[in-house]
């Protein structure tokens, strides 16, 4: 029971992170392999501010804002100039970003683990002697839930969201119709990076702490989540995140924490070979 709630809580974070991947994938057909490193960078900024001011929430806000800015800058300065004729180019450039960010963080903050404080107690409530979930888990659910709802509203109910979808779906036509396509791309990256930062702020207190490579495993788990749900499906990525979270939680609980990455790899292989479009994908023609 505790494992289930723990898994759902972790899964919520993976869902948010996978959602960030899906946002960028849908807009630009790039899987942002630098997402993890970007999230760590903004988390460093956030926790630095928290440590300096003593206020967790100020640091939290700074991390999200840093995510917005970093995402926009990444799009404007680097990703915009990537040639999209081969899908490899975007991946390779993102890998370059990973190296830059991890190297930069290591130079500024050093490569040792730093503590990342949680704003709420991580001690679980007990109901009838059974540990269920902690205040922090509730906070994670609430934060991720709010983000998912806000994004859904943005994309389905606002003009900006409509423009973003149009820019991703048919860039040339949208441009002719007066949509600022490049602006929409920048906005998409900024939003995605901010969601990634949120996920980073939520997941780091439950892991070992702040470290330049802290999100590597989280990235792989979230990529798996996004693939399980289908890279094209926002709802799928949320469900995929929960599935991966539960799987990880059960595997670490029953078989030991070291087996968890292997379980993720197996899940990824099985889904990619069985249903490469994701478990929740509609039928789609394979492009050659």
């Amino acid at each position: 029971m505790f494992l289930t709630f723990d898994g759902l809580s972790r899964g919520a974070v993976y869902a948010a992170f996978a959602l960030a991947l899906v946002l960028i994938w849908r807009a630009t057909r790039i899987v942002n392999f630098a997402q993890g490193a970007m999230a760590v960078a903004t988390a460093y900024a956030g926790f630095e501010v928290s440590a300096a001011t003593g206020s967790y929430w100020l640091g939290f806000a700074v991390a999200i804002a840093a995510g917005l800015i970093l995402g926009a800058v990444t799009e404007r300065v680097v990703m915009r100039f990537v040639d999209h004729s081969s899908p490899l180019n975007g991946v390779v450039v993102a890998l370059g970003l990973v190296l830059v960010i991890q190297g930069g963080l290591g130079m500024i903050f050093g490569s040792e683990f730093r503590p990342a404080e949680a704003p709420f107690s991580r001690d679980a409530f007990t109901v009838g002697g059974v540990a269920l979930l902690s205040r922090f888990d509730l906070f994670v659910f609430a934060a991720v839930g709010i983000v998912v709802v806000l994004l859904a509203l943005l994309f389905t109910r606002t003009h900006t969201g409509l423009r973003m979808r149009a820019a991703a779906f048919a860039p040339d036509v949208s441009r002719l119709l007066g949509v600022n396509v490049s602006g929409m791309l920048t906005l998409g990256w900024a939003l995605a990076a901010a969601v990634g930062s949120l996920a980073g702020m939520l997941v780091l207190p439950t892991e070992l702490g702040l470290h330049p490579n802290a999100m590597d495993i989280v990235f792989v788990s979230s990529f798996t989540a996004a693939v399980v749900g289908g890279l094209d499906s926002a709802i799928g990525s949320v469900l995929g995140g929960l599935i991966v979270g539960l799987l990880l939680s059960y595997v670490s609980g029953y078989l030991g924490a070291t087996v968890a990455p292997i379980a993720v790899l197996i899940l990824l292989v099985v889904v990619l070979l069985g249903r490469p479009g994701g478990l929740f994908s509609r039928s789609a023609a394979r492009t050659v």
Partner: protein
Amino acid sequence: MSGKMKIATIVAGVAVVVVLTLVFPPFRTYQLATVGAYLCVTAGLTVLTGLNGQLSLGHGALMATGAYTLALSVNAGWPLTAAFAAALVVTTVIGGVVGLAAARLRGPYLAGLTLAVAVVVPAITSTFDGTFNSDQGLSVALEPPPGTVTVEQWQAWLAWGAALIVLVLLQLLIGGRFGRELKAVRDDETAARLAGVGVARTQVLAFVVSAACAGIGGALFAVLAQSVSPGAFPLSLSLFLVMAIVIGGLGSLAGAAWGAVLLVALPALAHTVTEGIDAQRLEGNLPLALFGVTLIVVMLAAPGGIAALRPFKRSPFKRSPFTKAGLRPLRKRSKA
């Protein structure tokens, strides 16, 4: 250059390196040996990524496979040649398994899967810590080299001997029909299939060849360091390898050689720069950042890499109308 010329160049290059090992001080010789070991891996990876269009972020893990196999067999009392053969066989098999999966995947999916393979190495070593001894790793007890040869020279000769074999075999392989099939599959799968090329077969074969090279390279690293541990094969190693072949020049063995040199030279350079100032944090992280910046700049500005930057020669990518279709850098590929 014709195929024979290229092989002659490879042999001459290796001969020069062997002569250098006789005059260099031990540390430089050791660095040369490291270049040789990296060269085995980058040469295999550039065939896979540059010529066949499959991006693998998991070659660090394949190197780890080779290294651990060598360590286990040497410690079981096998002679060094048998241990190398074992490393080759095991990585070939693992490469075949990953390659079978890879042949069904494209672009970012393949990158994500191989990334997961790279990340999972420490988890495997600590799950089966009875065999792999977790984070501590294994030490490799080598017999002393014959005669008056120093350890570094012996290591360098081993590494460059292996690099010579790998390069010549790869050159023979990509200079012939298989090389053309690789490029055909990379450029247009449908057209390749119509022309009678087995797409999946070619992709799996490319992965297997590349994995075997990575296994040899990994085994050499075990010999060089005389130990193996998961810390020696982090995710950044796999990223470095990709970086090396992209900066060197995708799809050419000369590019792989440049990349291998860079992999050794850049950290050494960063080390000399940071040596004077007391900057512990720069150590190791500066090369990381340098690699990243170089990678991005090269990707955006000169996707042909170092091997394509030859001032007196027209780019090999534009030599004749016949090679034009095949040997273009990734960036210039037409939209499928």
